[in-house]
């Protein structure tokens, strides 16, 4: 088990170093680097944090502080199917709150959480910029516009049936 852990850690370390190569070794580039890591893994692995800390000479606590401040950075991976519900004003006014409530009800988790089997997670987002299609929810990158609770149910059903 420990061997396996080290393998994963090594991989993350190497890949993070690749990302770091794209940037000059300056502390102010931290957020750009974290954005790349987040995009690659869907969260910021501890090993990535350690690598960045060493490389840029920033204390881990400070990196942790930055990660937890910005909503884009997460410490836990998201579910296989990340359901993001837009709560931007235009969508809210068209009823996206009921989509959020329904998602929470169906999946038994709160926003920002992942289901125990790792299959689903819920995210609240503020304005994906498709206000003409309000209300909007997304499953990973796929956008469902003019969404209804029924549609959300059907989508959840579909992915729940998958293995």
């Amino acid at each position, binding site marked *: 088990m420990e061997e396996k852990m080290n393998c994963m850690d090594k991989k993350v370390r190497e890949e993070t170093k690749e990302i770091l190569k794209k940037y000059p070794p300056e502390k102010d580039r931290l957020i750009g680097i974290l954005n790349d890591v987040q995009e690659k893994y869907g969260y910021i692995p501890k090993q990535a944090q350690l690598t960045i800390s060493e490389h840029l000479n920033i204390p881990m606590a400070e990196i942790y502080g930055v990660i937890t401040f*910005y909503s884009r950075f997460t410490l836990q991976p998201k579910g296989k199917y990340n359901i993001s519900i837009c709560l931007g004003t235009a969508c809210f006014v068209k009823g996206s709150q009921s989509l959020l409530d329904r998602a929470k009800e169906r999946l038994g988790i709160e926003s920002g959480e992942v289901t125990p089997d790792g299959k689903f997670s819920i995210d609240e987002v503020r304005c994906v910029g498709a206000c003409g*299609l309000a209300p909007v929810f997304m499953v990973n990158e796929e*956008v469902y516009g003019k969404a209804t609770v029924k549609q959300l149910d059907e989508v959840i059903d579909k992915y729940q049936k998958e293995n």
Partner: protein
Amino acid sequence: MGRKSIQEMEEIRSQKRQELELRVNTKADTREKHILVCHGTGCTSSKSPKIIENFRKILEEKKIENVRVIQTGCFGLCAKGPIVIIRPEDTFYAQVKPEDCEEIIQTHIVEGKTVERLLCKDIDGTIVNRLDELNFYKKQKRIALKNCGVIDPENIDEYIAFDGYKALYQVLTTMSQDEVIEEISKSGLRGRGGAGFPTGKKWSFAKQNEADQKYVICNADEGDPGAFMDRSILEGDPHSVLEAMAIAGYSIGATQGYIYVRAEYPIAVQRLKVAIDQARDYGLLGKDILGTGFDFDIDIRLGAGAFVCGEETALLESIEGRRGQPRVKPPYPANKGLFGKPTIINNVETLANVTRIILNGAEWYASIGTEKSKGTKVFALGGNVNNVGLVEVPMGTTLREIVFDIGGGIPNGRKFKAAQTGGPSGGCIPAEHLDTPIDYESLTEIGSMMGSGGLIVMDETKCMVDIARFYLDFTVSESCGKCTPCRIGTKRMLEILERMCERKSRARRFKQIRKISQ
């Protein structure tokens, strides 16, 4: 490709302008047709890339030669997206699906007839052939959005064709720093990010400070939920922002610019990267721009999902790699900003107006709008309104005109209840103030504010207490935590509002208790 001299720029300009005449003139003398497809985020979510792909494929299969398919920025009428416009005739097809491409090519391009069923229907039911016949567009005046929907944002030559980078070399070759600042001041341009601070004044403060390095920052964080003005400008006309930043840099004495753009705008980021590369390639950014000895370069810095980073000092903290917590002011960024140096921070829309002011003159700009609010304002019209989309109107246009004439009124036969401007920092405007002219002072007087441009219309099915709760919920989760009034105060307010929205009133309890005890 490669560096262009001023002469070469002029050649590109006149040649391309002729080629693209059909984009703006229905009577252009041309045998070409251009099919313009909106490739902004909104329409992209509705499969406009597939539409572009299909058109190109079909044209190739049918071996049709004098027709080009162009991706453009947002046309504005998002409610009817995806939108396709055929030039030069300016035929406007709405809610086009990828399956419709075959018919459009066959009927419109080959047979020369309009596809009736795809024409846009105005709110009153009239079928419209052309963009400018729609009520939505009649009262608009597009200055900041001038190129959106006209040019391909990933083609610098198209930008140059419509006077792109002409303002920059006018500034570099014929105007002093003070003259530029004077012109911007005279125009009356005020910050479009929400605060409305006079832009010329801000630039002059920065210019006055002596320093070995100064910075120009474009605030493209656009955190207000429901606002997408800046996104549309960045996606549809990124060069206008780059050019304006270079002009600003010249006037204050800066050689480096940053565009702080939220990571949730991947298309905008992409367009900016392409635009910056192209500008550098032509020598319009970098060292010795157009051979004038002026150096200026621009880099992108991504945001990471913190609303507070739209506040200028929090933004500075973020670029410096830290938690985005605002700094106490004074000192103001113009004196001590990024890395402690004099810095100006301008909103995207503010910058998008700069080149027009330089080319057409401060007096022209000042002739539009009201006494204290000059020029135009872009609004993202959303919520319970028919024509959801992006509009640009002269300052002083009334709320009624925006909601009803341009916005097409409230759908489903419902009634107007309120309009929210200024996002989480703004206020609701009720029906009794519908005839308020939209400008900085008038809105503040009635308890709202201009804000960045998000304008959300609400009908009678909206609960105003819940709306207040909604905004506060947002503010509480976005509070940076630095100062007690915001960190704790907003939370207490939210708790009170949440109690109000649930049925737990003490008054009622007393009634129940009294009943039971009887």
